[in-house]
């Protein structure tokens, strides 16, 4: 069943249809919440609460619009509110997964080590950026949201996402150069 149909049925009070909709989007919703809160249990609570709030707000969801960014905006708000009320700073708690079998045979061990170091540097520099910069980069590059989806999720215009992203990358570049100089 298509997402639009599920959303329509959910709007009419069909909780089974909504459960299916939740299952379709819970992974990305949890990741968004985790990127904001930096804490897995808090992210789980925020995700669950956001889905409940989204159900109650389905009347305000424009039929035919994309459900995912509309939902992710609710998740982002819920996660931000929870983090603020818990009095925590937004810290980047992401880690790079262990390489394992992912290394291609075509890549030399030296090149793999250098690439891994570069990734760690990038992650460290990203952690030095503001929450706004981090989120726009994370949504766009880590979660693979389109510019339009990122804009809806962050509650701003598409042009704003473009300019924010450009400034965030410039700051990230500076942070990386500083890191390397040090």
């Amino acid at each position, binding site marked *: 069943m298509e997402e639009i149909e599920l959303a329509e049925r959910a709007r009419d009070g069909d909780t089974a249809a909504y459960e299916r909709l939740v299952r379709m989007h819970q992974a990305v919703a949890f990741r968004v919440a985790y990127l904001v809160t930096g804490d897995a249990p808090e992210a789980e609570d925020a*995700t669950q609460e956001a889905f*409940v709030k989204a159900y109650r707000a389905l009347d305000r969801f424009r039929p035919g619009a994309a459900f995912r960014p509309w939902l992710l905006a609710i998740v982002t708000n819920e996660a931000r509110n929870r983090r603020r009320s818990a009095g925590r700073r937004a810290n980047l708690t992401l880690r790079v997964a262990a390489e394992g079998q992912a290394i291609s045979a075509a890549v030399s061990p030296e090149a793999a080590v250098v690439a891994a170091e570069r990734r760690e540097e990038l992650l460290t520099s990203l952690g030095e950026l503001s929450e706004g910069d981090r989120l726009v980069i994370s949504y766009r590059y880590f979660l693979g949201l389109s510019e339009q989806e990122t804009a809806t999720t962050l509650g701003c215009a598409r042009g704003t996402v473009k300019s924010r992203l450009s400034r965030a990358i410039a700051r990230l570049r500076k942070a990386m150069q500083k890191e390397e100089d040090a």
Partner: protein
Amino acid sequence: MPDDRRFSREEIERGLSDLGARLEYPPTPDVARAVRLRLDEEQDRQAHRTWRWPPFLAPRWMAFAAALVLISVIALSPTVRTTLSDSFAPGDQTTSEAGGPVARPENGGSDRSKQEVGVASEAAGASAAGEGEGAVGCPAPSIEAEPARGVAGARFRLSGHHFSSGCDGATPASGVRIYFLQAGRTWKLTTLDASPGLAFDTRPRVPAGADPGRATVRATTRSGERVERRFIVLR
């Protein structure tokens, strides 16, 4: 260092996309079922609410109204009023050797008056006791689980109200222990203090070892008072 090694924008964008594919997130919890249960509970409650008594006819208000009527009857009864005014007016009464007030012989004699005063005092006493410890002055603590169903390991919201220390209705209870009971097994979920509003709100998990079926969530105060709520562990 040559400038081309100083991270071009394209290089950073490539690096971010590559990083995004290799990031490690905690495993995604399955919240779909819990969300549906919460929504179903909510809808059940809303449907149930339509059949409830109007708020002004709720048992608590009915008890309050009954107490008010009783006090009014006592206060407006001419016999009681006369007796009370006699009791408080100095010089209008004499005291017997035994220490009891001797009513003036009105309305058919002193024995009847004494009887009525006795009944009224008992009623007033009962009413006062009812207000002090019953539904009005010191409401019984209560807990609410939402949803009241869940799989082992799932979180649920547990809220409590009227958790005061003693019966002053002002001091929040501290050290309230929350247990999960099932088939002779007991799990301690948490210990918490009530807020200044005498309430608490927590989100414990259904114990991982709980079996599908009926269970009980219990809140025990330091004074040993217990409040329980039925919980269904789902398969």
